[in-house]
């Protein structure tokens, strides 16, 4: 971790995650996360659900 690390509540930045979940407090580089939050597009979420749920057009995943 770098200079700027803070322990923050685990539910911080939950807007970026789906489904929303909180965890224990975590060490993060707060400045980095702040900049990410400012610059991701509206509605951006992690994880990438279509890939994550392995949703495929043919449904068989050959």
């Amino acid at each position, binding site marked *: 971790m770098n200079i700027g690390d803070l322990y923050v509540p685990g539910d911080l930045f939950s807007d970026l995650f789906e489904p929303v979940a909180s965890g224990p407090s975590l*060490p993060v580089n707060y400045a980095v996360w702040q900049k*990410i939050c400012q610059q991701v597009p509206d509605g*951006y979420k992690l994880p990438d659900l279509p890939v994550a749920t392995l949703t495929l057009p043919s449904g068989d995943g050959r």
Partner: protein
Amino acid sequence: MRILLATYWLIPHVGGVWAFMDQIRKALERRGHQVDLLGHSPDYTRYHILNDGREFVKADVMPMIESKLSASGGMHYLDDPVIRQYETDRYCLELAAAYFGLGGYDIIHTQDVFSARSLSRVKPKHTPLVAHIHGSVAVELRAHFRDHPELGIGEQSPAWRYCHAIEYYGANSADIAVTANQWMKGLLTRDFDVNPSRVEVFPYGIEIETFRARSLPMTPVCKPVGKKVIACSARLTFVKGIDLLIAALAQLKAIRQDWVCWLIGDGELRADLERQARELGLQDEIVFWGFRQDAPALLAMSDIFVHACILDNQPISVIEAQLAGAAVIVSDAGGLPEMVEHGRTGIVFPSRNTDMLRAHMNYLLEHEAYRLQLADSARQWAASHWSMEAMMGRLDGVYATAGRIASGGGRGEI
């Protein structure tokens, strides 16, 4: 224009993706564009913009990503270590790209399905995205799973399905995907359900004059007197089929001894291949040169070039061999048959068929005039077909089309 060339893989690297990125960076800059290069750092701990030194340390965000995904429940796909590795790294790439900022680019040009999918999710909607697909992650991973049954990954496993999902969503996330040959396009559209209307096909190009300058005889290596040189330039990895070439050379030695073989390249199988050569009594016929800066000069001294791979797309080594004036023999694996016209600009043999490979090598050694004719035809054809100018012209057209699609609102989310 301001252009971002991006990959999930390491930059710089010895592999072909990095070589391609560096090559088109130079070509784009000569045309007056400003180019940034985004990718994993060589030590795998960061993403970086290589040309200006900006860095994004993965450890700065990974604890939060891991914690959130673990706490959210229901994400059982992440129990699979293969998927977990790729996906968490890919999410880091998304956050890194957002951190660096994508708003200033006129074109984003990714070099793999991971970065294509990731950057499509964090780029401004009206920024065109072009995805070059240099190989099939799914095919390579599934081959790895088959070769390692101890991993327990079969066709019903999440990791198997993940391969399909990332190939599908990666290629379809771009305004235009580009492949170097019809084989790769067919693989994407037939096996991974990628929409054919999104895929453009045009071959790689290389700086031919630069290559020719590097082919000048500035090397300490001399061609052995009275011997023909059979060369192969490739990473010494399983898919390159070097073991098949060595097996065919053992057969050839039983017929004739007027040749040596130069293996140019290095890789994880080197010790195994050297042992195979010794066990077949080929230690005096095969030279393992390792990685060589003077590879073009070695190719220029070669009479026959063999690429016996079991899976490959459009290897630069075959292009270089054609330009260097060697008679080329390639297997029919992957995109290789599209690189030669059998009997006119090269020879194609069935992949893994060492008897046929031995027969073709023997024929070319026996028939000097035919070998020279093949080499000459290939050299003339290669000079126009693999031209960098031709490739950049096609790429200009793709950038323009992608720009029109993106300014019209893009292809829509998938």
